[in-house]
């Protein structure tokens, strides 16, 4: 007997419920790639972003997303006319796409900083540097997170 339209719809409905609801209830606050690109556009505007110059040191596999060491450095002579103005770090799947904005100047001497961040999920981290000539350079790194941060319950 061929399946009726009603049977087909109820089957499709139950597949949808099984497929999406658990994800939605577990991660109601996840940033989407759309939020990531909006956050990046808020900083970069319409300027084009080139790949290169920026180096992002972050472990590819972390056991505890609550404290992930991260170092960002930019290949720049850091002179009065050619230096890094700022470095902006973003993530793909935390509840909020921003991680931090870091402002440098020629007297920094070396375009590098380190900090420790939280990652709520296995995801991509993006670092974008703004140079003194207002060009933007980016690098992305994938990080696998075993124990997620941010959304756990408080005891």
């Amino acid at each position, binding site marked *: 007997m061929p399946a009726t339209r009603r049977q087909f719809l109820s089957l499709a409905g139950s597949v949808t419920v099984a497929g999406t609801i658990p994800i939605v209830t577990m991660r109601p*606050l996840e940033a989407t790639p759309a939020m990531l690109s909006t956050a990046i556009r808020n900083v970069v505007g319409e300027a084009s972003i080139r790949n290169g110059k920026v180096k992002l040191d972050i472990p590819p596999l972390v056991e505890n997303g*609550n*404290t*992930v060491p991260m170092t960002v450095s930019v290949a720049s002579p850091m002179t009065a006319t050619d230096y890094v103005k700022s470095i902006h770090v973003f*993530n793909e799947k*935390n*509840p*909020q796409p*921003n*991680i*931090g*904005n*870091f*402002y*440098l*100047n020629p*007297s*920094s*001497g*070396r375009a*590098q*900083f*380190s*900090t*420790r*961040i*939280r*990652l709520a999920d296995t995801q991509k981290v993006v670092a974008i540097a703004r140079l003194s000539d207002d060009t933007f350079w980016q690098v992305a790194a994938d990080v696998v997170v075993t124990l997620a941060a*941010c*959304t*756990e*319950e*408080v*005891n």
Partner: protein
Amino acid sequence: MTALINVPAKARRGDVIEIRTLTSHIMETGFRHTMDGALVPRDIITSFTCRYNGTEIFRADLFPAIAANPYLSFFTVVQESGKFEFEWIGDNGYSSTASASITVE
């Protein structure tokens, strides 16, 4: 004093030195819930600034993705002896300062 500051005591003129800072703060994300479902309000440090003899040399805007007890290390060129002043500003009127001196030869 809730901050740990690591600045070299001495440097030569024109040296690039590393400054490391660690301050104590919960950095509550504002995305966590208690067992009975109530949202825990956000309480983070939103801004860090380092000044050297009054001039800003490094600044950062921080978001909830920065780990608890924020650690920051960065670099600067030293030209003269002086004092580094550090300031953390955050939610609920949080403010904290620290300072460290360096002798430049």
